[in-house]
């Protein structure tokens, strides 16, 4: 019994020491800020990252709940520096958003849009990994803190994320995203060459500054940055719940191919 206790204390002491060493490797000396928790954006970037007035939703007879909130925008300098053809395409996207917006089919949202959906995300942070779990569509991505040379094996919807700590800031490089995702519901978009440099830094215990610099020489004139706050969910009961939206869009996607079952 006594030996058990001594062993437990030794193991614990050693683990603490080893854990400090490990964390120290990733973050010079002191412990990394603790980003664990459930976070959510409260602004209207989900509807449009650029400044915009409230507007009706898409479709022939939209109701009030389909409408977009107005917003001051989250883009530094207000406007995304699109190449001229890309601005034309964004406007077309906006006009056709009822059909074209990939989120309407419950497709994975991509980065950065996943971080400012009107749904919570949960950060599970360890010394070697940060898991970003999103309520929408049960999307997630793993940020590798311990594998700087690990290149994306293949393109994906949520991209390939490698991170490191710069002082108190978590810096994440997101590469290898498919071109199929949008940046918001207003048709703002990117191409296959997109590179996202993300920065996560606490502004107090319950506010997380999220910044993302988007570089895509095929679509934008120059790199540009968006910035917003994510807010911690303070309800002690808070947890991510199912939003398995595939079930909600099957009729939209496959209804025309379906038939009533004949009576048995």
């Amino acid at each position, binding site marked *: 019994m006594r030996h058990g206790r001594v062993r437990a204390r030794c193991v614990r002491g*050693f683990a603490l020491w080893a854990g400090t060493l490990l964390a120290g490797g990733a973050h010079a000396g002191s412990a990394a800020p603790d980003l664990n928790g459930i976070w959510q954006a409260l602004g209207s970037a989900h509807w449009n990252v650029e400044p915009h007035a409230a507007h009706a939703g898409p479709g022939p007879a939209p109701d009030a709940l389909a409408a977009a909130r107005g917003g001051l925008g989250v883009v530094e300098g207000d406007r995304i520096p699109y190449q001229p053809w890309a601005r034309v395409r964004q406007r077309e996207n906006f006009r056709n958003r009822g059909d074209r917006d990939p989120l309407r089919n*419950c497709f994975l949202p991509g980065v950065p849009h996943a971080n400012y959906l009107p749904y919570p995300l949960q950060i*599970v942070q360890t010394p070697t990994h940060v898991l970003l*779990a999103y309520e929408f569509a049960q999307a997630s991505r793993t940020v590798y803190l311990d594998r700087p040379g690990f290149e994306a094996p293949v393109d994906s919807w949520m991209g390939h994320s490698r991170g490191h700590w710069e002082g108190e800031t978590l810096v994440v490089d997101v590469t290898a995203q498919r071109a199929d995702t949008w940046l918001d519901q207003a048709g703002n978009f990117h191409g296959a060459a997109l590179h996202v440099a993300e920065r996560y830094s606490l502004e107090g215990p319950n506010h997380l500054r999220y910044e993302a610099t988007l570089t895509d020489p095929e679509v934008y004139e120059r790199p540009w940055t968006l910035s917003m706050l994510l807010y911690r969910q303070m309800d002690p*009961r808070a*947890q991510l719940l199912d939003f398995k939206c595939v079930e909600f869009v099957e009729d939209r996607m496959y209804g025309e191919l379906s038939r009533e079952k004949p009576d048995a």
Partner: protein
Amino acid sequence: MRERVLALAWCGLFLAGAGAAAEVPMTPWGKPSLEGVWTTATLTPLERPETVAAAPLTEAERAEMEADAEALWESFDQPPPPGSVGGYNREWLDPGMKALPDGRPALIVDPPDGRIPWRPDARAAAVAERARYGVGPYYSFTDLDTGERCLSDGVTMAPLQPYNMNYQIFQTEDHLAIVHEMYHEYRIVPLDGRPFVPEEVGQWLGDARGRWQDDTLVIVSKGFADKSDYYWAWPWRAARPSLKLVERLRRVDRKTIDYEFTVEDPEMFTRPWTASAPMTTDQASRGVTAGPLYEFACHEGNYALPNILRGARLEAQLAGE
């Protein structure tokens, strides 16, 4: 300082004598670490086939099983017979190719006969469901199983699919996150003793709560959504309110977690039953691909489902319906 050196020396002696226990990686807060990329893939079936005795397989029998599996999977690379569109070839599959070395004939350890203790009515329903697979009729997307719809194949980490039997575990002091490669599902399990969510908040994979019992993490899941009207590839895994699942994870060495799950559902089974499916970080020992989890964007590329419905409509049209 001197005390610390002494303490370290003591600890060194102690840990050196601790043997196997010291092989279990520990978290900084003194719990066994469950972190890593794990697979449960194996050739050992969940249920003991009726043709196999309820006794451990010999080494020769295991070797024969593995050779049969090789031959079966090789056949997937052959062109399909006339009239068939075929299925995935070997390139797309990553099945467990090794039987568990202890030779057990099934993953189910209780009841001892290695068989699911179905109630007769539930067994009949399961057999009827099974007979529909790949046959139809396909009136609607709900005639495809929940996996083919890219929703879920249900709870547990039982190795039932021929690919994606990979799990990544992330662990903090108060949460365990398990990312399932299949359908990119994840479960975030609070370990802080909080109550379950109200039952009406039914969840596809249940509402999970974990607690440490000595060196074993026990995860209890209940509060499942009622999705029993859907067609499930494995009906016992269907989300339904009568289901309760208890999973036990115990790290036994650097490469292995003893993973056990107990399924309780008095509406479906005559008694609770338990399976043991060891998880390993040594993917090669199971004959599956090593490496990180990939994104399984199933729904985004689900051409099979609309094409099956399209085919069914065309067949009906040709039949003059």
